[in-house]
């Protein structure tokens, strides 16, 4: 029983992040609005970042900035480094996605996937 509680206490935030991730993923795959898809993608990616950062956490540790005190426990800095990079990659993707959405709006007059697909159907098939 104690093991179970320990396991739950030790894993619950991973589970929460998984649920968050899935919320984002659900928006991406279920919604037809292109902007909303990108917002969903952002939620998905941010949840992945949270997942990474929580694996770097050490109980009782402090932020990984050298305090000079001997025996100080620091949280793991490496996931932080990775996620800093990943955040920038994420915003780059968002920017490109939004730029594409703008061009799609200009060409089709809509950013709704369903509307665009209707147009494709009526156009001469490739």
């Amino acid at each position, binding site marked *: 029983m104690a093991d179970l509680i320990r396991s739950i206490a030790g894993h619950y935030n991973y589970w929460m992040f998984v649920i968050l*991730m899935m919320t984002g993923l659900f928006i991406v795959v279920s919604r037809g609005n292109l902007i909303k898809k990108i917002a969903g993608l952002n939620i998905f990616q941010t949840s992945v970042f949270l997942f990474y950062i929580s694996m770097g956490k050490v109980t009782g540790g402090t932020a990984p900035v050298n305090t000079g005190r001997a025996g100080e426990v620091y949280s793991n800095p490496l996931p932080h480094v990775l996620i800093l990079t990943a955040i920038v*990659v994420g915003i*780059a*993707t968002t920017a490109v996605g939004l730029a594409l959405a703008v061009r799609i709006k200009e060409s089709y007059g809509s950013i709704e996937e369903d509307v665009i697909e209707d147009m494709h159907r009526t156009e001469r098939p490739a």
Partner: protein
Amino acid sequence: MIAGATAGFIAKHLPVLVVLVPLMAAPACLITGNRHATWAIATLASWTSFALTVALFIRVAGQGPLSYSLGGWAAPFGIEYRADALNAFILPLIAGIASFALPYARGSIGRDVEPRQQNLFYSALLLCLAGLLGVTITGDVFNIFVFLEISSLASYVLVAAGGGRDRRAFKAAFDYLIMGTIGASFFVIGIGFLYMATGTLNIADLAHRLATAPADRTVRMAYGFILVGIGLKLAMMPLHQWLPNAYSYAPPAVTAFLAATATKVSLYVLIRFLYTVFGLDDPFEAQTLKLLVMPLGIIGIFAASTVAIFQNDIRRMFAWSSIAQAGYMLTGIALMTPQGLAASLVNIVNHGLTKGALFMAVGMLTLATGTSRLSDLRGIGRTMPWTMAAILAGGLGLIGVPLTAGFISKWALVSAALDAGQWWLAGAVLLSSLLALGYVWRIVETACFGKADETRVIEPVPLAMVIPAWGLLAVSLYAGVQPALIMEGANAAARSLLPHLTGVGG
């Protein structure tokens, strides 16, 4: 004296120069602005990069794996570039295709991209190339992600460059972006799990630590998410939906380049993870390959080839053919034998060359006639016999007719299947060739024996397109008659990945 010093510098930094040359040429393109100068810089960079990859291949073949610590920080603490028999074999393909695609782009890109945008286009092409090369050569899993995203972002915009002519390119690029980003995120989740299980990001270190650690759910999840993530990027059935549109609406030069390199690099990453990192000792990993990836590969071959037969658009037809061909490569990988792996590697290179040439030839046809719809191309073989001959030669390669590179691939895969005692697989591979015959012959019949449209206007095709297309085709045909180099390279790579299994046959 100076030459000697330069040579020494190049030799010392060879692995990183391969990537840095195109990476740094990209900003140079942007700054230069003039489209002719930009093109010259881009072409020069890709050729230089190609020469460097060839040098690297020779060096690795002669002296064994080469490790380069970036910034001088030793692995696993710093990022390592590591060239071994496997990636040194793939790198020349990527840079080589780029070397053909850039001259080709000069002839064709005017149709899709306006002059003052062309420096941006060439920048993006170089970034894509640099990203793909970086993914292939790096020995650090997170670095793979970073360079994968460079190449992916660049390839989204390259696909969107076709939007000047057909707005559907924008939507195709957007879908590609969504699918690609989901794939990349899955990949990141996967390497997160791996990092949690081992505490390292270096491939060699990962392999070492995973070999001794018991395989638990964490590692298995890492395996699953990396498989799906990379599967999305390489258009493994049923994760292929982005590909047909992306290949159909991108500018011809882009389709030729991406079809020959992007999915191939993803396959490389898959091989690297399966064989180097995971090692497939865990029954779960092996069974997944055998019971999931191989059937998916075979279903992909048959389903995608069948869909290809019913396409009216030639580019879309060959895009579906690419999905089918990825199935062959996955099947070889899933055989888990040195022969199967070698067959996949041979296939990666041979199909890259053939499909690159094929998309270039189709691009010429499209440019000259203004259409790629088969129903509008009846009898075109009489007006453009040489272009049709190039398409036919490439198509025969897809079927696997002797003296083409595709025949060698098929031979290697069937040998591997027979060697592994998988009779049904050998049969399926050969039977599926008939489907390839089906779609290639639809083109031949329509183009050569159909009634020609007398009113058709044929625009001249620039030599800048003709020469690279035929050059690449010649390379692919040469690979069909002189397969020894590619086969030996593939065998060496397969042997290096599966050292505990011996007896690699031809």
